């Protein structure tokens, strides 16, 4: 038992991989067995995450549950793990969404075994990003997550999946190139990849490097990191991969993609960009803020114009993640002030909240699609009469996404605005206008699906939401309302880290 607690992060990180190996040995034809095994295995990390939450030390500075394992000593890189208040909620998000994604996949018929294995591997990849305290390990897990998602889109996706998956992987990998080069550079210059040591050594550098002034080198490295994360978040104009990828991915894939993967980018900003490059972040915060605002506004407009329900939700992700980045930019510009703390608190909380809400939205789109095989908003309509439970859940979730007070979205957005407004007043104001449009498209979507005349095409084919599908939504909804009413559920943890770092 002691060993489990001492190595809890290792267990959480690699249990999904172990699960994948177990699945590999099971016969591919027994779908029920595979699904329940996968579900069971993916619940264990969740349990351990809860243990960590309960044992979390709110007053300690720095990282907790730390562990260090030998990996590649020859180049001074090791598997160093640890969480703080910023990453633990992310871990919770990941370990929560994965079982739900498995639960959502009970209707997959083709190649179920490979599908589930990929999800589990994806979980390890995402978790690795959040818990790594070694720069190289971070990069490894960052890239490792790409391949399962590529195949999930490519093999189980919609009609345009080849294009979407290729675009996804090429975009992200190209974006990561700069990250790769900068990681190499930092490793070489600092002589280690340990996050804590790198922050100290890298910030202490003041001599010219390769004959170039250190400020220039740092600026280039900053942009290298920033662009890689910007592609992932995504920030306008690096967002063009997202609508296709989200739309073509299978339902559970979109859940993880929007719920977890986008957060990797934002997390990268918080964990690496701001601590490594404080001056450059402050210097370029304005640019980032502008791009974020564009993402908010244009994302909203984009969502409003969609006829495809799933694509609409995809654009909504751009819209919401824009808020996250706006907050980060504000935190960068105003480092050390309470505004920065507010902004970061809000942005992390929004990351969690959006993760939950977006996953829920995508799932709900999937529920409809499974029955009607269309996502065309013009063909849907009037479902309220036939599927009242579904309708209720849909409204609830979209309100959470929208930021209705009492639900999780509101608290996070409030914190972000309160933190950013003093720093980027104009932009925040524009962003709030964007929020208006958020409401518009959300309501439009609800109207198109639930209200209006019932399209007789679906008469007799439409069942209400099933028990299993409800089981997927219930945990999400609990979080949405729980965080809305009592944000301290997570805010305390988040703030425990934020107050020290920012």
């Amino acid at each position, binding site marked *: 038992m002691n060993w489990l607690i001492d190595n809890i992060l290792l267990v959480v990180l690699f249990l999904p991989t172990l699960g994948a190996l177990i699945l590999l040995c099971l016969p591919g034809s027994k779908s029920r067995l595979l699904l329940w095994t996968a579900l069971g295995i993916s619940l264990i990390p969740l349990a351990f995450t809860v243990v960590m939450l309960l044992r979390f030390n709110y007053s300690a500075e720095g990282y907790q549950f730390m562990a260090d394992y*030998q*990996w*590649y*000593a*020859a*180049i001074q890189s090791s598997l160093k793990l640890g969480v703080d208040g910023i990453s633990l909620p992310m871990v919770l998000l990941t370990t929560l969404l994965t079982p739900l994604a498995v639960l959502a996949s009970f209707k997959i018929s083709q190649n179920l075994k490979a599908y589930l294995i990929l999800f589990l591997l994806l979980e390890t990849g995402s978790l690795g990003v959040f818990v790594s305290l070694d720069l*190289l390990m971070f*990069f*490894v*897990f*960052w*890239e*490792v997550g*790409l*391949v399962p998602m590529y195949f999930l889109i*490519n093999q189980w996706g919609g009609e345009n999946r*080849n294009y979407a998956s*290729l675009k996804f*992987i*090429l975009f992200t*990998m*190209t974006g990561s*190139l700069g990250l*790769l*080069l900068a990681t*190499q*550079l930092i*490793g*070489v210059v600092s002589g280690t990849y340990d996050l804590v040591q790198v922050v100290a050594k890298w910030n202490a550098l003041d001599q010219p490097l*390769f004959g170039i002034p250190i400020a220039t080198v740092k600026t280039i490295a900053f942009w290298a990191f920033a662009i890689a994360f910007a592609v992932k978040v995504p920030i306008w104009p690096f967002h063009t991969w997202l609508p296709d990828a989200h739309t073509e991915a299978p339902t559970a894939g979109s859940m993880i993609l929007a719920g977890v993967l986008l957060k990797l980018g934002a997390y990268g900003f918080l964990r690496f960009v701001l601590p490594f490059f404080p001056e450059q972040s402050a210097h370029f915060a304005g640019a980032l803020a502008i791009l974020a605002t564009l993402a908010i506004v244009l994302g909203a407009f984009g969502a409003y114009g969609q006829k495809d329900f799933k694509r609409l939700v995809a654009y909504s992700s751009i819209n919401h993640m824009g808020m996250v980045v706006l907050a980060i930019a504000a935190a960068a510009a105003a480092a050390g002030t309470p505004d920065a703390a507010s902004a970061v608190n809000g942005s992390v909380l929004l990351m969690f909240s959006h993760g939950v809400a977006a996953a829920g939205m995508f799932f709900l789109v999937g529920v409809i699609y499974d029955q009607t095989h269309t996502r065309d908003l013009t063909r849907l309509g009037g479902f309220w009469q036939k599927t009242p439970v579904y309708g209720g859940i849909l409204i609830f979730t979209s309100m959470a996404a929208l930021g209705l007070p009492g639900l999780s979205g509101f608290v996070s957005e409030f914190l972000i605005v309160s933190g950013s407004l003093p720093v980027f007043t104009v932009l925040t104001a524009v962003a709030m206008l964007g929020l208006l449009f958020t409401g518009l498209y959300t309501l439009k979507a609800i109207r198109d699906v639930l209200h209006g005349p019932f399209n007789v095409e679906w008469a007799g084919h439409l069942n209400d939401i099933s028990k299993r599908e409800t089981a997927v939504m219930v945990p999400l909804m609990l979080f949405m309302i729980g965080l809305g009413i009592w944000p301290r559920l997570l805010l305390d943890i988040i703030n425990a880290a934020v107050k020290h770092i920012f």
Partner: protein
Amino acid sequence: MTWINDLPILTIMLAVPLLFAVAILCLPAGSKNAPRWLALAGGGFLFLLSTIVFFVFDKSTPGYQFVDTFNWLPALGISYRVGVDGISAPMVFLTGIVLLSGIVVSWKIEDRPREFFSYILFLGVSVAGVFSSLDVFQLFFFLEIAVFPKYLMIVMWGWPQKKEYGGMKLTLYLFLGSMLALAGILAVVSKAGINSFDITQLLGVKLDVGVQKLWFPFVFIGFAILGGLFPFYNWAPDGHVAAPTAVSMLLAGVEMKVGVFAALRLGIRLMPEGAKFWAPLIIVLATINIVYGAFLALVQKDFKYIIGFSSVSHMGFVLLGFASLNADGLLGAGMQMFSHGVMTALFFAIVGMVYDRTHTRDLEQLGGMSRKMPLAALGFIVAGLVSMGMPGFSGFVSEFPIFMGTWQAAPVAAIVAVIGVVITAAYILRTIGNVFFGAFPAEKLGEVSDIPWRDKVIVIGLSIILIAMGIFPSLIAPVIEQGTSSVLALLGGM
């Protein structure tokens, strides 16, 4: 396990397959099964012993291990001397892996199996011999023994359209490279003035700097031609495409490594000052290899040509690592030699499996092969991910230190080389998509069977090695470090 150190294990490892090779030739003409099984025994034996050598290797002791010596021509200081250090032990292991894999995937050769299986053993022994040689004369002896199996195997069992042209081009080019290196080495050995061809003794001699600067290019570039250094890489695509599957595996998998290995052992180690002088040029050429090779792979329409050019590109990484002349670069180069060797063997094996069944390698004609041979598709994907440098696989843990080393030596080269990584991703993904996914054009390809179980074993085995090395680089990195530390001492001490 010190009793193992007392056995002349390397000599046995080389002699037994050699005897088997000769024995196979003595079988009656027309024997079909005996050559296969004998070759399997010989190759398996080499694999087994090379595994022992690799895993028993003591990482903490510097210098050479498993050394056997025998006086050959004392009057001129020529001796038979074998031994391995941290860089050559993994290479010997690699030879065992690739040779065994090559024999298994060629199991069904129908035309003159006796000659085929005999020659392939000769080729394997030659390569393993070079890696184990601690005497310059002996190194060349083993190196050139490979000439006739290389050539004959290509012209006798290769791709009919290109076999004569490809075989002659490959053999002559490689011979040219080794001959240039020979001229350089003879000059160096005679200038060393100790009347000995023993590498361990030659390492202790400090040669005049002018001599080093003059002869280093002969030795290094001569050997690097065997590794496909730009602009002397043209033999590789044609030669590898023309060769039968197992020969491509061996040539790209280990023979190319022989070249760069000799370039390191006889070039850099014997002439460190010369190496430092010429390193910038090598860095430029190696970077061109990486980027241009990848670009050439991108525009190919023939499945096998893509892999051929991909080898040229990846060998550029090895050479870049060597030319950086620092700890990280050398480590990465050593890792890359092993990783690329296994990866390219896997690639060519699967290409062969596809071609044997569909009789085409045209990307536009192929498609949907993952439905017909799912495990082969998976293996190709694994190899592809290695090639792309995806973390979690051996390519990443090899290329990353090379980049680190390049940053220290020539930062611009690191930035340029990363373009190669992108292009690699593009052509790999395109190839996978074109060949393995999509619709299966049944009207063009007809009936296609899955691969037999023995091929599956090879695919799984090679894939496991690639994944294991990617996840646990420390399985092999400390061994390589033992070898590179002595090189670094030479470079630093100057």
